[in-house]
């Protein structure tokens, strides 16, 4: 019996017996590249298959053998004309199964949603406890460094100061300069209408030193360094570097967390102040052009109209924001386990949480300092 063979694709012919039972004659290569179109057609056959003839099959691999064997198994059909290779492959597949789940089973929607909400709330609770626990462990480690057995890794701190602070100078500077320009320009438009054009100096000076300098720096540092802390530590967790440190007797808290937190705490007030200065310079530059206030007059006026406590407000917030950013970054990094997707997820969480916490705290500080009489 000769069969029409398509180039590269497997094909078959069906012959029905008197009682309706089918004899399938397969032809062509029966390999992974050729059974794609054949398989659905075989599955759609109606009527019991009694015999599967393989004498027209030139070539076979496990996928082809599986197609034949599954058809034979489901119909209790007989396989005839199989080459030695086909028989060997089918024999190897006989004990294997093709059924069963390929992804873990999902719960039905009505169960899944409450379960998700419950898990989420529990995770939120655990996360809060976890970060408090982490803060406690870190303070303990800091205590040991200050008064006891452990040593401060000065080199690591210096390195982190460089990464968090020095390398951030260009971007923070540029951003603050531009924000200063925007505030001065927009402020001037509104204030000139009221006839208080010179008040632009007050606006730029006070808002930069008090609020915007430190807040924008915090957001930038959270994005630059908080994320990198989480990703670095998370990757080290995955590659078991953290475990290796523990077994050698190096505390990850002491070697990884403390230097990063300390660096962030030290650098944040400096970066915040630098940012405020650049933003004032930006404001002064635009005022020279649009308000006819000479540059140096603007700078001198800032000294007169901005109270010193505005500077303190900015400087006090700095270390607190630095602590929050570094702590969330390191904590989220330490929580990584399992796979590489987790590193990305934890990094995102670290940045989002840090920025959110910074803004909430900033609001709290605003009220607090005003109550204190530093309004």
């Amino acid at each position: 019996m000769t069969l029409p063979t398509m180039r590269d694709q497997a094909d078959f012919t069906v012959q029905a017996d008197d009682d309706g039972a089918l004899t399938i004659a397969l032809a062509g290569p029966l390999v992974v590249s050729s059974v794609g179109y054949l398989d659905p057609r075989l599955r759609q056959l109606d009527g019991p298959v009694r015999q599967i003839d393989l004498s027209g099959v030139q070539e076979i691999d496990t996928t082809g053998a599986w197609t034949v064997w599954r058809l034979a198994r489901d119909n209790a059909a007989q396989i005839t004309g199989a080459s030695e290779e086909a028989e060997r492959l089918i024999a190897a597949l006989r004990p294997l199964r093709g059924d069963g789940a390929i992804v873990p089973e999902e719960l039905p929607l009505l169960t899944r949603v409450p379960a998700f909400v419950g898990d989420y709330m529990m995770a939120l609770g655990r996360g809060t406890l976890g970060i408090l626990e982490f803060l406690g462990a870190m303070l303990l480690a800091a205590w040991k460094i200050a008064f006891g057995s452990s040593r401060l890794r000065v080199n690591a701190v210096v390195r982190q100061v460089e990464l968090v602070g020095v390398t951030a100078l260009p971007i923070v500077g540029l951003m603050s300069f531009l924000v200063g320009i925007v505030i001065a320009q927009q402020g001037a438009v509104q204030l000139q209408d009221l006839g208080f054009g010179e008040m632009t100096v007050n606006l730029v000076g006070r808002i930069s030193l008090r609020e915007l300098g430190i807040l924008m720096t915090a957001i930038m540092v959270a994005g630059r360094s908080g994320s990198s802390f989480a990703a670095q530590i998370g990757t080290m967790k995955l590659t078991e570097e953290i475990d290796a440190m523990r077994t050698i007797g190096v505390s990850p808290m002491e070697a990884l967390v403390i230097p990063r937190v300390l660096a962030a705490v030290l650098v944040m007030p400096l970066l915040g102040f630098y940012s405020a200065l650049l933003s004032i310079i930006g404001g002064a530059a635009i005022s020279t052009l649009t308000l006819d206030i000479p540059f140096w007059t603007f700078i001198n006026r800032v000294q007169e109209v901005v109270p010193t406590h505005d500077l303190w407000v900015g400087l006090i917030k700095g270390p607190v924001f630095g602590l929050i950013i570094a702590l969330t970054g390191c904590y989220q990094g330490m929580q990584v386990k399992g796979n590489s997707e987790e590193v990305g997820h934890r990094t995102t969480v670290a940045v989002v949480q840090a920025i959110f916490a910074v803004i909430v705290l900033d609001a709290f500080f605003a009220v607090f300092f005003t109550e204190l009489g530093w309004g």
Partner: protein
Amino acid sequence: MSALHYTGDCPIVVEGLTNAFGDHVIHEGLNLTVRRGEIIGVVGGSGTGKSVLMRSIIGLQAPAAGRIEVLGQTMHAGSYGGGEIDIRSRWGVLFQGGALFSTLTVAENVEVPLREFYPEIGDELRHEIARFKVMLSGLPADAAAKYPSELSGGMRKRAGLARALALDPELLFLDEPTAGLDPIGAAAFDALTKELQDTLGLTVFLITHDLDTLHEICDRVAVIADQQVIAVGTIPELLALDHPWIQEYFNGPRGRAAADAQHRAKAIDKSNGQGA
């Protein structure tokens, strides 16, 4: 055999391969020919460039000089075209750590090459293929729905093997498949490799440090030293050579222990055979 499969005698031919990282020369004028249907073991000290050789052959590493021919196609690093069928659908690679995609389950990992090369295969058949390949690699059926992070090191290697076998390759590259496995797991993996070679007619390129693997399943062994393949042959043939590294490798305490184990196993087989 039709044109779908390679019918020549030497699926891998490496001629004059030179690899260097900066000033550090890894290979210089390396030659190697792998015969169809054999399991070739590649040995060499650490840092002699066994993995680099494998990466050059599969096109992940651009060699500084030399010609590499795989399944009759000349390889150019970074490009896999040229042949009638994409060469990558005709080989399977098991990396040292398994290199499973960590966000996919084992079965989904096996499905990746199937989806990539043969999108016409229906979901039903593709799932079935994934499941039976998982079992063919010696994993229990319920491992199919697990994520790589839930598996032990040995199971991860088997899952990697299942993915390497997804397209019924003609060539199988194994990078230290038994490293990090317990002796029972390693012996089982050896037996599996041998069995798959017999059933599927594979040509296997096997990098290993495992002397038992070499004795047990390798048809020939290629020794890399001094930036070259200094010898290729069966273990007795290699032992007849007078190279100090080869002598130390196969005649060191571990080499002898592996050889003795092999002799004992053969003797037991023989006496069982007579008893039956």
